[in-house]
């Protein structure tokens, strides 16, 4: 039992379960799942599906934070990727046959390449120019939306192309396609981190970058690669988001995503100071954030107090996860019992 409590993912999972149970209590039917027209429907599926873009970005963010970095440009990169995908489709659709899949793959490729370049830019600024990560990525956070607007000509690009809609709205074996994407990325990462030495190197760099460098770990290669990966995650999220709403909004797509992603990483139990990280925890963190949002809408909190309620709930979840706070609670508990 004690071992369970100190397991790094126990408290994030407990927080998620608590949130879902509270929802189930106040709103019977919240946890229900239905099979309709070959698809699985229900709030749980909906939460997971909506959390998918954030979950992807959180995984990238986890690894960047693990090497003492930070990427606050993910929202902007999402917008760039979404805009480029939309522009590519508009451009190619005219020339290709009806129902051709070429625009789909070209859009995915172009968006991901653009995202990777953004990540490389971030990584080089951090490693080669020696900038503070938050400043280095601030540049792209600001400039990135400008770039996206340049591509979209300041318009919201609308996508009239059926195959592309599959990414954000399609179902595979009854479940949303986005979920498969998240799980696939997670499993691939998990294998990469545990079956190769990458996990060891990342933790070494995060814990003591200088010592890792002296030990011969190629931190100058690994760190930029992680920024590239993080940006690619943002790129994939951009594909999901733009596909879901069949449009790309250079100004508003992925707005404040960077903060949600950092919060998800933190909720998941990774140290924001680097070194210790928990990939699965970040996934759970993303689910917690989406559950909060869904909860607030489903219990009908008036829109004007909605952010305050979210803030209070986030604070409670974070307090629940703080070992210091739990210890203080434990010290209070016997005192209360003895006085009662």
């Amino acid at each position, binding site marked *: 039992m004690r071992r369970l409590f100190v397991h790094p993912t126990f408290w994030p999972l407990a927080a998620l379960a608590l949130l879902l149970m509270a929802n189930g209590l106040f709103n019977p039917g919240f946890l229900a799942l239905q099979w309709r027209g070959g698809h699985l429907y229900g709030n749980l599926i909906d939460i997971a599906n909506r959390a998918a873009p954030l979950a992807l970005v959180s995984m990238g963010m986890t690894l960047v934070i693990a090497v003492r970095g930070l990427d606050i440009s993910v929202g902007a990169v999402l917008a760039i990727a979404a805009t480029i995908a939309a522009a590519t489709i508009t451009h190619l659709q005219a020339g290709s046959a009806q129902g051709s899949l070429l625009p789909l793959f070209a859009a995915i490729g172009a968006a991901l390449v653009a995202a990777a370049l953004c990540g490389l830019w971030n990584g080089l600024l951090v490693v080669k120019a020696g900038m503070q990560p938050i400043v280095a990525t601030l540049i792209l956070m600001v400039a990135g939306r400008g770039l996206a607007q340049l591509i979209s000509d300041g318009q919201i690009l609308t996508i009239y192309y059926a195959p592309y809609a599959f990414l954000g709205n399609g179902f595979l074996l009854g479940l949303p396609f986005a979920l498969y994407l998240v799980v696939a990325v997670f499993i691939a990462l998990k294998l990469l981190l545990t*079956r*190769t*030495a*990458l996990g*060891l*190197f990342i*933790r*070494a760099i995060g*814990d*003591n970058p*200088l*010592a*890792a*460098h*002296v*030990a*011969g*770990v*190629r931190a*100058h290669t*690994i760190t930029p690669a992680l920024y590239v990966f993080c940006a690619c995650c943002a790129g994939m999220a951009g594909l999901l988001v733009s596909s879901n709403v069949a449009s790309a909004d250079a100004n508003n797509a992925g707005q404040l995503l960077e903060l949600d992603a950092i919060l998800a990483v933190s909720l998941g139990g990774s140290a924001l100071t680097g*070194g*210790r990280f928990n990939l699965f925890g970040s996934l759970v963190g993303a689910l917690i954030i989406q559950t909060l949002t869904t909860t607030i809408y489903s219990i009908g909190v008036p829109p004007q107090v909605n952010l305050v309620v979210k803030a209070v709930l986030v604070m409670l979840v974070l307090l629940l996860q703080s070992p210091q706070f739990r210890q203080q609670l434990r010290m209070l508990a016997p005192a209360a019992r003895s006085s009662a």
Partner: protein
Amino acid sequence: MSAVALRAEGLSKRFGATVALDGASLVLRAGEIHALMGQNGAGKSTLIRLLTGAQSPDSGTIQLDGQLIAPTTPLEAQRAGISTVYQEVNLCPNLSVAENLYAGRFPRHWTGLIDHAQVREGARRLLAELQLYIDVDRPLGSYPVAVQQMVAIARALGVSARVLILDEPTSSLDQHEVRELFTVMRRLRERGMAILFVTHFLDQVYAISDRITVLRNGALVGEFATAGLTQSALVAAMVGREVVAAARDSRNAGTAGAPLLVEVQGLGRRNALEAVDLHIHAGEVLGLGGLLGSGRTQLARLLFGLDRADCGQVRVAGEPVALRQPSDAVAQGFALCPEERKTEGIVAGLSVRENIVLSLQARGGWWRAMTLDRQQSLARELVQRLGIKVADVETPVGALSGGNQQKVVLARWLATTPRLLILDEPTRGIDVAARQEIMGEILRLAQQGMGVLFISAELEELTRLCDRIAVLRDRRKAGELLAGCDGQQVLDLIAGES
């Protein structure tokens, strides 16, 4: 005999399965300098942490002037009258000297604002007691370590300590600075303060202490009057056996016949090192001597790719190699135990196993991971070979004592079976026995053909262990001496008097 200032009795502390301190006792008298001796892992640090309230004992008592105290934080201990100055000065380098002296207890105006005039005045007065006259408005970090240490002591005095604990204060000071520190310590002794002096330097213990307490494996060996204890008896008390001094056996003046391993031609870097020529044979221990700042560490950094050279060339087994980053050097079979163990050596949050396999794994590439079994057996083997005191190889390295951490760094490199091992002050801050073990292992490997570049500030160590000694002075090579030279020759070369 003067009054007892501090009496600690039956102090015990265990961390998990490790017993760090087992019923140790310590008696400090007012107006004495008391040395605390013991090997790494003997429990010195733990004892100090208990006295200063950084940790609480599992059992045992501490009395200060006859009053039982049980400090639970360093601040409480300080208020009670126990102040500590640590090996690594833990003040804020970016604050001014005066601010450092008063941080946490600033005198206030009637407005509630900090009274800066009084801070400055008080700071000057405190430092004057140590006969230190410096600009108290300059940031602390702009002064040399020796001055920073004095400031740390002044801060301890400022809170009017009865007991002053000096935890390895001399390990980063030069001879002259050590003498100045000793002058201050004597003055404090005359004022009736009880001083606990922790160090690894035996000669310093004899130079200044009145009394010695020796710990071994967490338990008290005994308390001795310094005058009545010979140096070898002290070492024997610390290690529990007679140490056989590891010395270079006079076997070989013949490494000149061995193949040339590394050839350095005109290697230099602006503002760090003038072009230096050097060669190391297989199986040779090449000493590198010189004062602090003579370019010893810079040469090691260039050779290991930690800094880029502006000029010159390095050949390994006759082939020119490019050393742009440490991973290049590691690929060539180089290894470096850096001077700064904490910042450049260990990865504190990783386990002993992970620290040991790190370099081997880095050289093998990230794609080909070693299996956990292989990692564990490798780590266990090296832990045993170097006598690293740790119950489980999954323990985080940060939890180990200093000497054991240093051994872990060495183990990391031995795992890569290096061709050239660069040791930058490998024995600094390490006790006699651990030093013997480390040097013994290195000499054994040298006999099997590994080249060693051994950087040390200690003459005696250089002349005893090295086949050849190169001396740097003012960032250039001053000369070379062969094995069998005496310390005076090296000293002349270092000082530039030959």
